[in-house]
């Protein structure tokens, strides 16, 4: 059943287009894939000449909420996870995205846009794991 009360097709589509534009800018001007886990993880394996643009991209992400707040009210968020869950989840996301070479941006947006079979498999895998995890937490345990 669709959750019509929370479904936001237009703002989500518009935000998605912005993400696409950011991906396009980075690809065409810098020649690189806008994969967040790869850009961030690369900072933990520093290579000379490779640090500046990574820091800059991450800084842009970090200040986005400040810039957004200048023009509009930031959307309210609900975080159900407690501290323990956040730590376990963070560890899994950190290890998993690096081990699997990508996350929702690198495999999901970029990989699917370039029709990479490897990214299609990766995206299907993490989506499936996400569906199963939420089913277990919400409907079997919760």
């Amino acid at each position, binding site marked *: *059943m*669709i*959750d019509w009360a929370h479904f*936001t*097709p237009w703002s989500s589509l518009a*935000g*998605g*287009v*912005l*993400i*696409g*534009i*950011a*991906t*396009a800018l980075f690809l*065409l*001007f*810098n*020649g690189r*894939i*806008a994969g*967040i886990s790869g850009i*961030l993880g690369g900072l933990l394996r520093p290579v000379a000449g490779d640090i*500046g643009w990574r820091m*800059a*991209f991450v800084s*842009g*992400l*970090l*200040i*986005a909420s*400040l810039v957004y707040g200048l023009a509009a009210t*930031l*959307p309210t968020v609900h*975080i*159900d996870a407690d501290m323990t869950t956040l*730590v*376990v989840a963070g560890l899994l*996301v*950190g*290890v*998993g995205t*690096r081990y699997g070479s990508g996350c*929702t*941006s690198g*495999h999901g*947006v970029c*990989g699917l*846009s370039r029709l*990479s*079979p*490897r990214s299609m498999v990766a*995206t299907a895998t*993490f*989506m499936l*794991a996400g569906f199963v*995890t*939420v*089913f277990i*937490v919400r409907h079997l345990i919760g």
Partner: protein
Amino acid sequence: MQVLMALLAGLVFGLGLIMSGMTDPSKVIGFLDLAGQWDPSLAFVMGGAILVGVVAFRLAATRSQAILGESMRLPTARQIDRRLILGGLAFGAGWGLAGYCPGPALASLVTGGSKPLIFTIAMLAGMVIFEIHDRFSRSPAKKAA
């Protein structure tokens, strides 16, 4: 120039994440909750991004150099292996538990209070664990053993 464009791309990416609602973990979990009240918004975010992305990658395929002069760095890995699947499973499980993936966590860090901060610290710790494991498993000493 490279650095400036990277900053701009990161900023626009972050604005897109916020506008799309993806910095709200309950919206992400709402999408992953197929058996409950389902919020399809995340599919629209991916759809909007991929719509632009397909055009961008088609344009990129016709170029040997990026506009700012660097060579194009597109992924060359094609193999579908154990690392890809296990990594995807771990990432998806963490994503479903908290409702955060790396982009939204970073975009929530400055104004979002303690929860995205704790998630991000744990995520960075996870990435460090990967680095250590990866270095160890690829070191010549290990291969010889």
